[in-house]
């Protein structure tokens, strides 16, 4: 608390929050909730983001509950209490700041492909003056950077020591190599690596910081700001410190400890690994699956076991760094095709098959197509039906990285194949990570049993990488089971496929998990075990995604990607607007934290802000984001999409949200 009045506070900070809030009891939380409800209902029909409410009177003494301890003393930012009445179930099982309470059944949607709907995304180009000024911005940045380097090296050689040879050693990084980091990225330092604390749920608590030296280093002020979190990969809202999943994880830590002490093949395998693998296979509808303790390493250590010299990997040009890492280690040849462009893919296939291997013209041993289900920077969806049609003709194997799509797409959350209602067995390899939708960590690869067994033996992770830890395994099991529901398949109301597991057992896909597949000590609460809560999360995510994407378009912004995608990129173009957008969002009455991305993660000109929608957001949260974008968009001249006459006002969008989503 001594830090509170420290004079060195960031000037951008508009309000200071105490580093440790006064303690409250559960009772006072509930009474505050009902007060908030009453207030919200007393207000107009479209609740504003800030029901002014003071809690200080209701604060009593201590409680053991850490989450409640974190409560700030007021709700000025509108993040602490729901503005619409939650159900009592929600009040008792989840914390509104982690997982928003939203009881309105209208705000639900089913994520699925409507047959006949087009997947072609028309990319809207910005006006010419935007492109031109963007290029000029970069040009100025680069020139100024070089001038600063030139002068700086002569005037302050001390500051450039690490770029100069000293002691006979070459510089640690060449000045060319680090030019981008020093002269471009550093100007955006404010937007990156923001230290946070607590759960990365619906809201996140940022540790306030300021930089005495223009972004080279940061000093924490001791203050904290709770912000609406539309940045974390928390699609289904399973990032929670409370609730059935967290209870199961706690139990697993007590029973298993935090680690299994070693690599999978060398004494680090435990029964939970086996169960998780079986459950993952069942979830995605494959014969077998393997898991690895890191999503990045799943690609980087198992792709080399799939292909080698003499094989061709055809890769989407926007594939993730981990895929490139793995492919490079494999020694296979690589060709890239234009992002999600099926024509480019087909012509590349025709060329590579007819030409064969370079120089020798021997036929390729095999061709592996590696694509992502949902692209993390673009929000584009894989055109799975088209790929499978090409696969029939060109006989290549398909590897889909579902890092972002698993859990987030499809009426049952099973990823792209579920979204398009395609048989998963038509795909050779499904890969995904648990970092995103499941609020855990690590990744999986699923396929037929022979393939998976081979990868277990020949993937680098088996003997050399640490196994997944029991708490993470349990989070995966619990969250996955609550999406599937636990029970007998007889009661399924949706159409399913009968598939067979590796040991010949038939099961319905997509269907529930058999009770025997879970450890006996996991007791999920009824709402989770029945799959009802999981379904609600899927529906809420689908609603929120479409609402935000379509809302932004209606406001006049240029966005990329499919409206079903929970990743919504909003184009900013100018590098200078990134900082501004970020700061303006964060300094609002309801602070919002956003992710801005630029070259080299995107094209040079298409700098963007990327929203990651979550099931934990309430409709009101999305309203807040839309309102913020609307205001900032006017200030920063970002509404470059549809013509003003076609636009809706933000109030109209908020009013007609359900209609918009169903359109």
């Amino acid at each position: 608390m001594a830090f509170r009045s420290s004079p060195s506070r960031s000037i951008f900070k508009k309000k200071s929050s105490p580093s440790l809030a006064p303690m409250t009891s559960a009772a006072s939380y509930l009474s505050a909730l009902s007060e908030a409800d009453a207030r919200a209902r007393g207000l107009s029909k479209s609740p504003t983001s800030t029901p002014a409410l003071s809690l200080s009177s209701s604060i009593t003494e201590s409680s053991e509950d850490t989450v409640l301890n974190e409560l700030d003393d007021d709700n000025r930012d509108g993040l602490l209490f729901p503005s619409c009445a939650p159900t009592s179930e929600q009040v008792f099982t989840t914390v509104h700041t982690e997982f928003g309470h939203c009881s309105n059944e209208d705000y639900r949607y089913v994520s699925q492909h409507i047959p006949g709907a087009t997947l072609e995304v028309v990319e809207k180009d910005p006006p010419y003056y935007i492109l031109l000024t963007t290029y000029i911005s970069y040009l100025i940045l680069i020139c100024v950077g070089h001038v600063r380097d030139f002068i700086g090296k002569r005037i302050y050689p001390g500051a450039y020591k690490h770029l100069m040879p000293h002691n006979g050693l070459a510089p640690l990084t060449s000045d060319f190599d680090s030019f981008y980091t020093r002269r471009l990225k550093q100007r955006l330092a404010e937007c990156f690596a923001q230290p946070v604390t607590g759960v990365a749920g619906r809201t996140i608590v940022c540790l306030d910081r300021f930089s005495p030296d223009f972004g080279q280093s940061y000093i924490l002020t001791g203050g904290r700001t709770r912000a609406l979190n539309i940045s974390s990969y928390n699609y289904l809202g399973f990032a929670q410190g409370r609730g059935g999943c967290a209870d199961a994880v706690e139990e697993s830590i007590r029973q298993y400890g935090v680690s299994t002490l070693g690599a999978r093949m060398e004494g680090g395998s435990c029964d939970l690994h086996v169960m998780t693998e079986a459950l993952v296979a069942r979830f995605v509808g494959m014969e077998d699956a393997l898991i690895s303790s890191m999503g990045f390493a799943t690609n980087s250590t198992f792709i080399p076991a799939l292909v080698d010299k003499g094989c061709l990997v055809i890769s989407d040009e926007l594939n993730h760094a981990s895929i490139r890492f793995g492919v490079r280690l494999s020694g296979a040849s690589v060709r890239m095709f234009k992002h999600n462009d099926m024509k480019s893919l087909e012509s590349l296939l025709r060329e590579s098959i007819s030409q064969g291997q370079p120089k020798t013209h021997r036929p390729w041993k095999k061709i592996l197509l590696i694509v992502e289900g949902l692209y993390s920077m673009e929000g584009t969806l894989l055109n799975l039906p088209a790929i499978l049609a090409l696969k029939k003709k060109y006989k290549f194997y398909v590897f889909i990285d579902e890092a972002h799509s698993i859990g987030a797409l499809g009426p049952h959350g099973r990823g792209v194949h579920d979204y398009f209602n395609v048989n998963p067995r038509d795909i050779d390899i499904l890969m995904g990570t648990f970092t995103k939708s499941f609020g855990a960590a690590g990744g999986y690869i699923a396929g037929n049993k022979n393939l998976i067994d081979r990868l277990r033996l020949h993937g680098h992770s088996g003997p050399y990488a640490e196994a997944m830890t029991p708490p993470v395994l349990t989070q995966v099991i619990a969250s996955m089971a609550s999406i599937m529901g636990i029970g007998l398949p007889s009661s399924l109301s949706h159409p399913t496929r009968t598939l067979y597991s590796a040991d010949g057992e038939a099961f319905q896909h997509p269907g529930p998990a058999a009770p025997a597949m879970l450890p006996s000590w996991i007791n999920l609460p009824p709402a989770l075990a029945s799959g009802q809560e999981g379904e609600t999360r899927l529906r809420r995510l689908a609603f929120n995604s479409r609402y935000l994407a379509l809302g932004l378009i209606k406001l006049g912004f240029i966005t990329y990607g499919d409206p079903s995608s929970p990743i919504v990129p909003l184009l900013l173009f100018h590098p200078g607007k990134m900082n501004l957008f970020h700061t303006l969002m964060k300094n609002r009455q309801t602070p919002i934290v956003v992710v801005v991305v630029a070259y080299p993660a995107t094209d040079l000109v298409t700098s963007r802000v990327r929203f990651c929608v979550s099931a934990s957001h309430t409709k009101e949260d999305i309203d807040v984001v839309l309102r913020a974008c609307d205001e900032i968009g006017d200030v920063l001249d970002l509404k470059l999409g549809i013509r003003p006459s076609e636009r809706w006002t933000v109030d109209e969008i908020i009013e007609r949200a359900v209609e918009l989503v169903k359109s």
Partner: protein
Amino acid sequence: MSFVGPSSSFDPLFAFLSFSLLKVEAAFYSLPGSSVIARYVKSSHQNDPGRTVLELILVVFAIRTLLQSRTRNEKQQKHFIEFDEKEIDELVAEWTPEPLTPQLTATEKSDLAAIPIISGANGAKPRVTKMAKPVLNLASYNFTGLAGNEHITSRAVETLRRYGLGSCGPSGFYGTIDVHTKFEETVASFLGTEAAILYAQSMATIESVIPAFCKRGDLIIADKHSSFAIRKGLEISRATVRWYEHNDLASLEEVLMTIEKEEKRRLRRRGCLSRLFGRSRIQVKYIVTEGIFERDGAMVDLPKLIELKQKYKYRLILDENMSFGSVGRTGRGLTELYNVPATKIDMIVGSAAIGLGAGGGFCAGTQAVIDHQRSNGMAFVFSASLPALLAVSATEAIQILSSTPSILESLHENTRAARAILDKVDGITIPSHPASPLIHIYLKGYTFNPTQIALEESILQEIVDEALSQGVLLTRAKRLRGQEVNEPKPSIKLSISGGSGGLTKKEVEKACAVIKSAVAKVLAKRR
């Protein structure tokens, strides 16, 4: 293209060509500022050809057109054969790919079946499925006996309730949690370096650290029997790698001397050219090795290594995956064992999964080294950060280690007790350093021979199976045969444990006695 012709008649032409080339070059360098451009182009070629191109293109605002034509280039290659559509269709129809993966062989299947599965918590005496009684565990990494430590588990539960499980984002995008920073500060002050960085997996750490600093054209000197992860890091970096004999610093010095000589010769030869290019660039040079080798438990002579690196002006990346948390008075690793300040090593890479019984890996070094990785360490930038509760567990583990020297004392005593028995067992040899709690067992009498790998492995597996039936869990060192370079000799890999959660000295002795009898039994059967 073969070129056969009376070469003599072309001589004047060549002379003219090279003369005019020199002329052009000289003219170029006489332009003001040209050396800057030349240096720029040169270094950009080494790092990332795309970026120079991009910057140049920017100047002329022609970025789009040029980027698009990049993919077309393939067609203009000289090996391209023109086909018409019908021919292509036929070729496509004809082509039959190999199956995605071949069927597993019988050995592969039995290897897979032999992997022990622990049921319940792993630790010094876990239960293994299919076994009635708990076994003595010499297979899992539990050097410091922190598995199941009550203080750590209760802190982990607290953290779970405060932070949830996953971080749901890479550290750049709201994935930098205060507990990560806390771990980084703790490990840096534990080792005595300026700073440290936490990765989400220990194998991925070294695979990212090497390519973050070494690029195409740089030089790395590495041990011939470096671990698999180091090798992959070297491969990814595309640097030029020179090898020295395993753990043989005399051989390292030889290599360093040879390179120094080559450099001098090259400088002399390129005298005129380097004059044109201005001051010639110093090559980026690294030595990469392990503290305790994963492959055989040998230990590097750190003071000598540091002497060499300083004498020949190299930077040192030391992989302490196996030595961090296992040697030294409080487990700080080789620097503590040899009493060398950690600041003398440029990058120390260690594991929070092996040494600390949690998860993740770290790299410690100067602030500049760490900051560079925050934007260039691939597995750091492109992967979600470590779950908060694992970071907290690792931090707690360090705190326990630094306040309880008795843990490492008991580990070292157990190691000595194990070696006292194992060193006398007939039919095996032990390549590991006497102080290393990671002990490899080789079969004696098999000079290393690639054709015998399968045989050796099957004998070792029999020993492992026999020991298990007598209540001791061992593991063969599992290898990726065919993917390794310099195939490692088959071995059994023991991890001794100590501390309150490890095995007692008596139990270690008992387990080693079981190994002794299992070796004797299996080898007797073979004879």
